[in-house]
């Protein structure tokens, strides 16, 4: 798991081109006694991941490192979830103080962030199927072969240079090694820690001896945070000297000579690789499904409940915004003067015709350039609400169109104002027509709300991805998460049917 982050040079430029805000994160860390560090627990072992034995805990060698480092700064480490390929953008936005999650030292990153001294060095290692005589085992043999790796990584660049047919994966390490095992790829090239935790533990896989390259990890900081960087560098040196660093790497089975050299020949640790062994024991083979249902899944209830609650709250609030705005837009389009009609149409076409992900990215990462920095929840709520308003507007427009014009005339001749007529006569009839499609939209929104994980919110889907990645149990947990989604969507389908019948009681009694 190696961060690529800004593989788009243009974007990198834009972020770098921003006027450097005056930041003094060090002072803030000291004042609040808290070091907020960004990571993506979906990335998996051994960096930052949910403990397969107790998913309520985040573990990993970088968790231990962040804790130790924060202590040196007189603070407590607080992990903040962020999508891995967005970590540097989130950092620039100020969502956390540092990003610490297998971030590779590379020149293009230095344009958008400060990098600390490296804290870990690793070889790029090749994994193949055991006993596969035709498998590529050297750099030369890679040409034209299907090889899996993580996008934007040093490994990817090496593979491209070697002329391999590169397959990259956004999800996590599991998929990369699954595809190798299933024969969809011929080899995997990745950093030593990943190879150790995903390749070595598989009996059917074989890690090829020898290195194809060397990578270093560093901590990323906001541009201009030189004081904090100096303090972090000093902290890392101190951890190396007092043996803490060596002990962390040792317990995770990650000790190597390259890292020792990074810190002037740091002494080898005298500890057992207990965390590595625990991982091996936990995920080597998943227990049978019913045993997982009885023993493991109940422990995950709390996490799923949190994720589901966030999904539900953000969806409900977004739907409220979408309905309120959608009704306004539909009224503007149906009854408003020309300029308002035009505005409504422009709004609807824009938000309906562009991807929600882009809208969310613009709101969360783009608006700060204009000085408007929204918190993740508000940004997610706004993006979903604004986007779905366009769908709702069309629903209500169809509803309004279904009410005969004579109804409005009749209400007007009785002396009702246009607003009163719309509210008491037209709207209730239109609403009933709009309910079934609106329910569909809400259920779609419930699912689309998984996009807010891009802006650091761990909702239901992200919870699933993290847990599945940590426990390597995609199928079983998939059933669990499907159950949670249905638990939320089915009652709304029922509720909408009930409301529809109630509003339509004049029709139900009809012959």
């Amino acid at each position, binding site marked *: 798991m190696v961060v690529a982050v800004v593989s788009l040079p243009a974007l990198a430029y834009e972020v770098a081109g921003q006027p450097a805000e005056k930041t003094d994160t060090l002072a803030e860390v000291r004042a609040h006694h808290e070091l907020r560090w960004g990571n993506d627990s979906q990335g998996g072992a051994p960096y930052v991941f949910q403990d397969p034995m107790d998913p309520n805990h985040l573990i990993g060698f970088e968790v231990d490192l962040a804790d130790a480092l924060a202590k040196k700064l007189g603070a407590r480490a607080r992990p903040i979830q962020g999508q891995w390929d967005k970590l540097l953008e989130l950092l620039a936005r100020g969502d956390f103080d540092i990003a610490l999650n297998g971030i590779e030292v590379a020149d293009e990153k230095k344009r958008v962030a400060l990098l600390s001294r490296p804290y870990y060095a690793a070889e790029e290692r090749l994994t193949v199927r055991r006993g596969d005589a035709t498998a590529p085992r050297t750099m030369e043999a890679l040409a034209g072969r299907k090889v899996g790796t993580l996008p934007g990584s040093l490994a990817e660049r090496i593979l491209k240079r070697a002329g391999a047919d590169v397959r990259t994966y956004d999800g996590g390490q599991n998929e990369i090694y699954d595809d190798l095992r299933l024969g969809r790829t011929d080899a995997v090239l990745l950093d030593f820690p990943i190879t150790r935790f995903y390749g070595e533990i598989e009996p059917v896989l074989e890690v090829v001896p020898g290195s194809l390259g060397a990578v270093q990890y560093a901590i990323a900081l906001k541009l201009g945070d030189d004081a904090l960087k100096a303090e972090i560098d000093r902290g890392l040196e101190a951890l190396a000297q007092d043996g803490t660093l060596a002990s962390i790497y040792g317990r995770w089975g990650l000790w190597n000579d390259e890292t020792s050299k990074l810190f002037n020949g740091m002494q080898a640790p005298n500890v057992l690789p207990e965390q590595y062994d625990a991982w091996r024991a936990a995920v080597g083979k998943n227990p049978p499904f019913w045993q997982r249902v009885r023993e493991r899944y109940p422990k995950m209830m709390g996490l799923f409940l949190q994720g589901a609650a966030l999904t539900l709250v953000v969806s409900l609030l977004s739907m409220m915004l979408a309905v309120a705005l959608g009704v306004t837009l539909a009224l503007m389009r149906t009854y408003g003067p020309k300029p308002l009609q035009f505005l409504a149409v422009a709004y609807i076409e824009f938000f309906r015709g562009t991807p929600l992900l882009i809208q969310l990215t613009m709101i969360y990462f783009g608006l700060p350039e204009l000085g408007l920095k929204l918190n993740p929840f508000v940004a997610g709520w706004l993006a979903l609400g604004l986007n779905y308003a366009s769908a709702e507007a069309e629903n209500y427009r169809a509803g309004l169109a279904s009410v005969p014009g*004579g109804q409005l005339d009749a209400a*007007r*001749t*009785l002396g009702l104002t246009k607003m009163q007529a719309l509210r008491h006569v037209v709207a209730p*009839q239109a609403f009933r027509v709009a309910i079934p499609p609106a329910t569909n939209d809400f259920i779609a929104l419930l699912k689309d709300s998984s996009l807010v994980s891009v802006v650091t919110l761990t909702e239901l889907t992200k919870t699933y991805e993290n847990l599945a990645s940590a426990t390597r149990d995609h199928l079983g947990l998939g059933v669990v998460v499907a159950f949670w989604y249905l638990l939320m969507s089915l009652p709304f389908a029922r509720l909408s049917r009930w409301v529809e019948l109630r509003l339509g009681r*004049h029709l139900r009694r009809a012959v």
Partner: protein
Amino acid sequence: MSIRVIELEKRHPGASAPALSGLSLDIGAGKVAAVLGRSGAGKTTLLRCLVGLDVFDRGAIEIAGTRIDSASAALGKLSGQVGLVFQSFELFPHLSVLENCTLAPMRVKGRTRDQAEGRAKELLAQLNLADKMHAYPEELSGGQKQRVAIARALAMEPSVLLYDEPTSALDPSLKHEVGKTLRRVAETGVTQIMVTHDLPVAREAADVVFVLDAGKVAEFGPPVEVLGTPRTDAARALIEFS
């Protein structure tokens, strides 16, 4: 209350000929008038101008001494004074019969629910609808719907009540009822004007008949005269046609 229409003119946007070209008429309080004429003679436009759904270009309308000219002819000005019973009734399908009759008095006149319901129940009883108060429009026959539409309009206590083709949506056997209903409403002093093609109903229920042609009144008088011994081509054509 009496109603006077003075030199009313109206041209629809884009139309080659005016819909109303100097139409005048005068109807006494509590009278029932029938407005006849072939399609395009201006009947519907007259109704829509009287009720305020259309704005006229020139002329004036006087109701109970209140004068409305083209500048002030907005819906708000006439609302409550003039009611309209639509050809298709346009009852509010999502509201019960009683709610249809109380919506406007409560929202427009600020009546309390009790006041509005009390008055609506009286009107519904007068129109033989007491047992249908809680029914929804879908459950009513054509004649019942029409009487609800009348009750709904009367609940606003208008001076003038207009009918657009009151017999066209009814079963032939019910047409006779319309005349009776109109006479009953006339007893309350409300002036009524119906636009119709139905000469028998005009004969039976109207005190005065107006024949429209090309946007103005061609001939008017008691039904026996106008429909018995017509003096104009417009009136003669109507009688031959029917």
